[in-house]
């Protein structure tokens, strides 16, 4: 008895010493330090690659910088670039085209992806392969997508003209040949670009919605059906409200991507014919890399940035309201 209490008295100081940790121990075992160290690589990457160029771009919107007139250098011009933009007809045309392209593309992507996701949410034999097939366009490089679709729309060997020709041959004899250059027609070019955008963007929306549908609890749907809801009512009043956060995320990401999408439309039409598919990213490219007017390209970028920032803030606040409502 006495021995053990003496032992306890002896160990107490040692016990205290071990739990008054050194500075180094606290540094290496602190959750705050570990949290910062873990997030540092990602943050530094984004600061270096994204934040710095953005700040530079926003700053250049207030300067005149013409690479073809290098002797003028970089001059501070205040709001002159913004004044130029207000009078620049092509900007308003491109803004109109961009908004049209984004709204129509995102809406139809969502609508079609919702139908397909609902059809493929419940398992049947071979569902994995069918789902896998529906996300294939995501895996095809942009350059291949543009090339194949240009071929599909092409007047000489395009699939669309071939199908019309086949039907025409059945109707009016074997010599019928349909030739129409879809992407060179200013009335159809935008529609063509929208179709390609939907085709290419569909897989991501489909996957997100499918994942969202699969993680919904089954109980609410079952309850609705017991209460006598038909398929449509069950979808509209039970499934859709539960999916709202997922749909919001899909809309945010797709709106941003489509609004900023440069390479696909550039490779498909280059903004033509007669500026029918001129969108803001193409306008930026033409100002910066064809006309070499960095200041003016920056002011267009700044406007795009502000539009997207406002939209994203609006969508995110919607989502936050959702979270509070629960």
């Amino acid at each position: 008895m006495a021995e053990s209490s003496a032992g306890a008295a002896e160990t107490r100081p040692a016990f205290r010493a071990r739990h008054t940790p050194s500075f180094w121990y606290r540094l290496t075992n602190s959750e705050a330090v570990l949290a910062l160290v873990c997030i540092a690589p990602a943050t530094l990457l984004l600061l270096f690659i994204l934040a710095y160029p953005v700040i530079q771009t926003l700053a250049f919107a207030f300067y005149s910088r013409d690479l073809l007139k290098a002797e003028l250098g970089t001059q501070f011009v205040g709001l002159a670039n913004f004044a130029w933009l207000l009078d620049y007809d092509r900007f308003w045309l491109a803004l109109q085209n961009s908004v049209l392209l984004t709204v129509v593309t995102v809406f139809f992507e969502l609508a079609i992806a919702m139908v397909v996701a609902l059809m493929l949410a419940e398992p049947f034999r071979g569902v994995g392969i069918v789902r896998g097939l529906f996300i294939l366009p995501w895996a095809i490089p942009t350059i291949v997508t543009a090339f194949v679709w240009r071929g599909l729309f092409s007047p000489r060997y395009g699939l669309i003209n071939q199908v019309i020709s086949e039907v025409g041959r059945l109707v009016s004899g074997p010599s019928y040949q349909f030739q129409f250059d879809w992407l060179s027609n200013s009335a159809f070019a935008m529609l063509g670009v929208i179709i390609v955008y939907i085709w290419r963007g569909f897989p991501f929306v489909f996957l997100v919605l499918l994942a969202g549908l699969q993680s919904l609890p089954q109980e609410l749907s079952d309850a609705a059906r017991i209460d006598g809801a038909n398929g449509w009512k069950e979808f509209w009043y039970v499934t859709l409200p539960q999916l709202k956060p997922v749909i919001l995320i899909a809309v945010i990401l797709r709106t941003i991507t489509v609004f900023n999408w440069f390479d696909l439309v550039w490779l498909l039409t280059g903004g033509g014919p007669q500026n029918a598919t001129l969108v803001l990213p193409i306008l930026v490219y033409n100002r910066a890399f064809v006309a070499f007017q960095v200041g003016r390209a920056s002011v267009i970028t700044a406007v795009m940035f502000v539009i997207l920032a406002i939209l994203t803030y609006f969508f995110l606040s919607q989502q936050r309201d959702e979270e509070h409502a629960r």
Partner: protein
Amino acid sequence: MLATTYRPVRFRWRYVRIPVAAVLMVLYFSPIYWMFKTALQPEHEISLNAMNLFTPSFTLENFARVLSEPRFFGWVKNSLILAIATMVVAVLVSTLAGYSLARLRFWAVKFLGRPFLLAYIVPSVMIVVPVFVTFAGIGWQNTYHAIIITYTSFAVPFCTWLLRAYFLTLPTELEDAALIDGCSRLGALFRVIVPLAAPGMVTAGLFSFVLAWNEFLFAFVFVFSDDMRPLSVGLMATILEAVYGSSADLSIFKVGAMFALCVLAAIPVLLVFLFLQGWLVRGLAAGAVKG
């Protein structure tokens, strides 16, 4: 018993959805079908403008022509290097960041995490020049690591968001058990969390791999030497030369061969997607719910 008694509505829907899905699939796959068909068609049929929806004469001559082009294998090798490196770095960086956001409690981290997805509102056209100038300033022009860092920074916001959400769905008890057993926090992350988060990790990895494999604008601007070009840039150069150039003496620049090249560029990723789609859905499921 109960499950089968109140499903008459579902039952009719099941008969409708298969034909509807079939029609949608035919429309949706016609471009891919057409790409494969043209790649398998003899060149003279394409150039004679005598093409039909279904070609009776299949040939592999277009593929043979692409595979006899020595530059093709160089492009594939370069694309693989870029895509695999991007995948590894992006997943590692995003795992750490996602873990930090999901599990470690520190006010600054919450503050840093919010704007991660906002990175996507930056139009890529405009950052090509500043990023290129920065890399040229430190002597990294025409190098792979500049491209890998750029691609990684494009993949990281989405992957971090996805992995953070996935980590949030895992029970903390397993991690606590590992910590009590004497594991460090990072040890717990890599030995307990990472194996459990496999669907999320696979999804993040696929997303980064596809992004790097398909991207061409930055690779086009950053790489000048011919032997360092990835497949996407090689493809674009080939197509541009075929459409606008006069170098018709090179046998690869034929329509059929270009389609064969397109098929070969798409096939590796197509196969990966077909086999891993179940993982993709599971990986996104967590992210989609948590937002």
